[in-house]
């Protein structure tokens, strides 16, 4: 029952936080230094500028009283009308969601690579703590986490280029570009719709980016697993299990490992925000479609509505992910006293 209470409380807090994000965007669009309409229209110059600014003024409702503007803002947010991108001349919500999902695909795959691998590495290291294997794994993980992501991505890109696969930038081969599905993640959609050829094609294009991104969580998670597993192995109940003569496999898998699942869940939630940043870098190196390339172009064009939309959406996803991580943490830990 305590767990359920906690989950309900956590969900309620995250709803509050999302409302807070909406309020921040309202402040950022309406109370900017200078004229909000000029910034919203992307600081236009030239003959069409006056018309664009007038349009933005009308969209933002700058001549309305403030409470009506707030109501309008909240209404539009929940309807999904986040304005029109200056650079792409398309609805912001469409652009953001589409590209975010493309980036999310990379993040998910890299976590799928990173977590089993880093669990294995961390376990190996903590079982021979202070020994050679531990030192090797430790320094590899420090180097992996410390290397800038563009270096990793560029090295992989360079290797692929030398081998002759320099054109992995697209998410899917040009002949499949019309393909679309319910989730927007091509690898998952193609499996759902039973198109194995598209799956293989998009999977091969995805894998280098996912590997490049996964170096960061591998480096971080492996070290956290190492530390918390080492701490668990010194716990009294592990020592009791050893005293009962239980085999090593049971002790490591059943006694030591459950202790670190909540830790890993929370860590994944915290890493998520950094992973989004890193994906943007990697997408730029591979010039692959996604949030990173979208944002780079938006910054160059001072595309204010698009960046606001991307900020809100990313922030909401982060809040949801962190809430989920906390809930997982609460469920996997039977002695919650929250």
């Amino acid at each position, binding site marked *: 029952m305590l767990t359920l209470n906690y989950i309900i409380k956590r969900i309620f807090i995250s709803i509050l936080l999302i409302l807070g994000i909406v309020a921040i965007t309202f402040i*950022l669009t309406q109370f900017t*230094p200078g004229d909000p309409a000029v910034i919203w229209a992307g600081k236009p110059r030239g003959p069409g500028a006056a018309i664009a600014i007038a349009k933005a003024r009308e969209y933002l409702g700058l001549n309305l009283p403030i409470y009506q503007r707030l109501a309008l803002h909240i209404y539009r947010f929940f309807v999904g009308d986040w304005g029109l991108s200056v650079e792409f001349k398309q609805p912001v919500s469409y652009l953001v969601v589409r590209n975010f999902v493309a980036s999310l695909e990379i993040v998910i795959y890299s976590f799928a690579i990173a977590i089993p691998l880093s669990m294995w590495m961390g376990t190996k290291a903590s079982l021979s703590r202070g020994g050679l294997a531990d030192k090797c794994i430790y320094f590899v993980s420090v180097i992996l986490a410390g290397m*800038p992501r*563009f270096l990793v991505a560029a090295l992989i*890109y360079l290797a692929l*280029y030398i081998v002759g696969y320099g054109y992995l930038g697209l998410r899917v081969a040009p002949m499949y570009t019309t393909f679309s599905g319910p989730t927007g993640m091509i690898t998952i959609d193609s499996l759902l719709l039973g198109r194995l050829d598209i799956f293989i094609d998009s999977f091969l294009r995805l894998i280098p980016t996912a590997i490049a991104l996964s170096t960061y969580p591998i480096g971080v998670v492996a070290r956290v697993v190492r530390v918390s597993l080492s701490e668990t192995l010194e716990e009294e109940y592990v020592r009791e299990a050893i005293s009962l003569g239980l085999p090593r496999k049971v002790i490591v898998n059943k006694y030591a490992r459950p202790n670190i699942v909540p830790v890993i869940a929370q860590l994944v939630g915290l890493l998520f925000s950094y992973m989004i*940043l890193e994906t943007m870098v990697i997408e730029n190196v591979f010039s692959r479609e996604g949030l990173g390339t979208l944002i780079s172009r938006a910054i160059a064009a001072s595309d204010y509505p698009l960046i606001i939309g991307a900020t809100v959406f990313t922030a909401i996803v982060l809040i949801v992910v962190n809430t989920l991580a906390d809930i997982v943490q609460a469920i996997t830990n039977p002695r919650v006293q929250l």
Partner: protein
Amino acid sequence: MNSHIYAVLHDVESMIVKTWRKRLSFRIACVLIAVVIVLAILGPHIAPYPRQGMGIDIDRSRALKPPSLEHILGTDSLGRDVLSRILFALNRAIISCIVVIAVSLILGIFIGSYAAIGSKIFEILISYFTELLLALPSVLLASLLSILMGGGYWSILIALIMTWFPWYSRIAYLQARSLRDLDFVKLPIYYGLSRWYVIQKHIAPNIVAPMLIEALSDTGSVVLEISTITFLFGIGVKSIEEPDLGMMIAYSLRDITVAPWTFLAPSATLALIAISFTLFSEMIYEEYHPVLKKRWWLWF
């Protein structure tokens, strides 16, 4: 206040000295950090081609020269000496990193400890507000600010401060909360001393030392994050003259297959900084961890 500062410095110093004696990789990391900081301070003065380093002297006729005695790390696509560029960029990276860390540390300590000993409403508000700020992605915040403030480096620094200080305020809050029921914090408040005074005299000195180590460990990440953001900006914003590691990397990407040194030199510098700062703090952590400092092998 002075004696408090000495006490904190003494704590940090004894941690560093103890770890220095025992761990080789800590010594290497310390030396590397010292070298980076010295280079960052002296960089603009010892750069072989200061005008090229600042980006004023552009000559396409000597573009993309491989490393030689004349240009130790070669030249980039606009014919500038890569080593001079890196030395200038290093200066800027370290200074901005110190600004970000120092400001967010001070903000974090005061806001966090005020939340711990202030009124209940303030405590709740602060904890939600920090969680809200933690959810904002730094790069998007930086780009929003750069559009609002008309571009520039300051928007990146402000965005980074806004996303980093919540961490420190959270840590400071947790630490100050464990102190707030102790008599030396509770009694002065009963006697009617101001909360700011109590924070300065009694809370901050007790939580600064661990947070300073924490901040040192984050230095590498901050350097990386700044250059990551300038990397993303650099693709869009056209300010090629500015010496900045992130932008240098962004511009050298298109030449990576022709002249890999223009790319590898700045990114290797970044990697070196990040790894040595990580090692620095991790070794101290390891040395002071009751479990990790002991050896262990499979004995069951």
